[in-house]
């Protein structure tokens, strides 16, 4: 469960590197590179959320708000003050991290699901601010003309170029997070999940670790928000509503929250469902998500990544019954 080999990472990297090339050759999936940019952006959020939920055992229903804060800070600073987008992205991370620290510190000191309650309220408040503070955020109409990104004068002006930028971020974060999971900090987090009392008496500063992971997950969401804003060049509040927070939770639950690959698989499947495969359902899309969540929580508590293990166990049991 813990050992995350280098081979899957390498294989996945290979898949990502050739993806735009393959998608370019096959007309039926020609637009998949564009969708994969969004998958990458959501992966940044779900990796952080997976660490928070699966490893530290805390639920946040406010990740959309951190995602939105990242996007809006980037958008406001670049369009109104003409600052360098990379610098704005950094400022957004600082702002989001500080806010997460302020929200997380009091609610994580308490036992139980207070963080879920606090982040739920926080997400709603932030969503209202995006809508109402029209002089800053443009209100429900949103903000347009957000500049694109460039690296040392090299404009990331095509979908393919942006694809590699986003997935570059994903791989850096993925490897960083895997390293953390496989270190003392990761052990401390898993210990907290199993028994806070025991973790505490082994000298683990439980509330500090919980806040730390919460801030980390918020920072990743902020980063994703900035990348989103610079990719679409336009943002409006509806992207960052409560439903998106819940969608993120569905991604984690579907993929499997106890495994970092679950975050990536879940983000991939849900994104493709909502951008491509669920169009026929139109307004009834929500029902499909509800059904997915229901089926997963009842039959697949470890998500899709837990499926092979479950089948294996079933097979072994069947064998021993014979």
């Amino acid at each position: 469960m813990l050992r995350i080999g280098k081979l899957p990472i390498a294989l996945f990297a290979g898949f990502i590197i050739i993806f735009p090339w393959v998608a370019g050759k096959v007309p039926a999936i020609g637009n998949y590179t564009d969708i994969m940019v969004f998958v990458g952006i959501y992966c940044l959020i779900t990796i952080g959320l997976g660490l928070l939920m699966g490893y530290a055992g805390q639920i946040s229903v406010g990740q959309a708000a951190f995602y939105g804060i990242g996007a809006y800070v980037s958008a406001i600073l670049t369009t109104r003050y003409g600052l360098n987008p990379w610098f704005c992205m950094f400022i957004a991370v600082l702002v989001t991290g500080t806010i997460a620290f302020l929200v997380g510190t009091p609610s994580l000191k308490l036992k139980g699901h207070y963080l879920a309650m606090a982040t739920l309220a926080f997400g709603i408040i932030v969503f209202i601010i995006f809508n109402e503070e029209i002089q800053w955020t443009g209100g429900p109409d949103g903000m347009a003309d957000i500049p694109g990104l460039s690296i040392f004068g090299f404009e990331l002006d095509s979908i393919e170029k942006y694809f590699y930028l986003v997935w570059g971020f994903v791989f850096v974060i993925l490897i960083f997070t895997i390293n953390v999971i496989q270190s003392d900090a990761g052990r401390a987090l898993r210990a907290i999940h199993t028994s806070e009392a025991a973790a505490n008496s082994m000298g683990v500063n439980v509330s500090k670790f919980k806040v730390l992971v919460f801030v980390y997950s918020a920072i990743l969401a902020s980063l994703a928000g900035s990348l989103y804003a610079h990719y679409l060049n336009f943002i409006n509040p509806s992207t960052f509503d409560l439903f998106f927070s819940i969608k993120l939770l569905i991604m984690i639950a579907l993929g499997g929250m106890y495994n970092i690959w679950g975050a990536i698989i879940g983000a991939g499947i849900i994104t493709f469902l909502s951008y491509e495969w669920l169009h026929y359902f139109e307004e009834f899309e929500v029902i499909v998500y509800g059904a997915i969540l229901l089926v997963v929580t009842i039959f697949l508590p470890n998500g899709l990544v837990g499926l092979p293990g479950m089948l294996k166990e079933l097979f072994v049991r069947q064998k021993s019954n014979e």
Partner: protein
Amino acid sequence: MNDTTAENILEVQGVVMAFGGLMALFKPDFKVKRGIIKAIIGPNGAGKTTLFNIITGFFTPTEGTVRFKGRSIKKFKTHEIAARGISRTFQTVELFGNMTVLENVMLGCHTRVPTSFMASGFRLPGAKRKEEEMRDRALNILKFIGLADKFEEPADNLPLGQQKMLEIGRALATEPELICLDEPAAGLNETETYVASSLIKAINAKGITVLLVEHDMKVIMNISDEIVVLNYGQKIAEGTPEAIRDNSTVIEAYLGSEA
């Protein structure tokens, strides 16, 4: 005053713990000399585990002070107390079941080999070295408690006797000066109990002071240097095993006055 603090690693003074109207502890004053094995005994509900929870910072007493190495521990949180040198096990095993035996003990090294989130994330050379140091320490402890060959097993897969040993091993990894063992022999068979008693003596031989809550009288009489007897949150006797065995108040508390 100074020589008593040097001699006594732990002093419990005037501690009152009230849960609403229930008085769980009422001033069971006692001291624990450095380097001994001291047992706390008493009928169920006497307040033994409550006392452990106070000593390790889970509860803040309503009144009174607990001094560890001469300093009051009132201000410290549980994890800070652990870092200062008090470790514990639990009455009902509280292992990290989904982690391996080795990982459980490695977690105990958490305070002694500090690593940072950033350093581990970027896999800095220092972080890697520390991880190896923790592994070495943990393996040494597993050898000491006799579980070295099980290091890769998930803790949940061990039988209860070994789980209890592992919990002690994890507590040892924090390098405590005082280790509080809450019923280490509960639920163990005779062989396992013998192993547990020998282990506790071996820990004590390393210079670690042991504070022990236990119901198994054979274990208590065999290994402890001093005994405190609690009943309804109050201390009713204190002394050597021989003295306690013959103490009429203690016999009465356990068996009733008719006996």
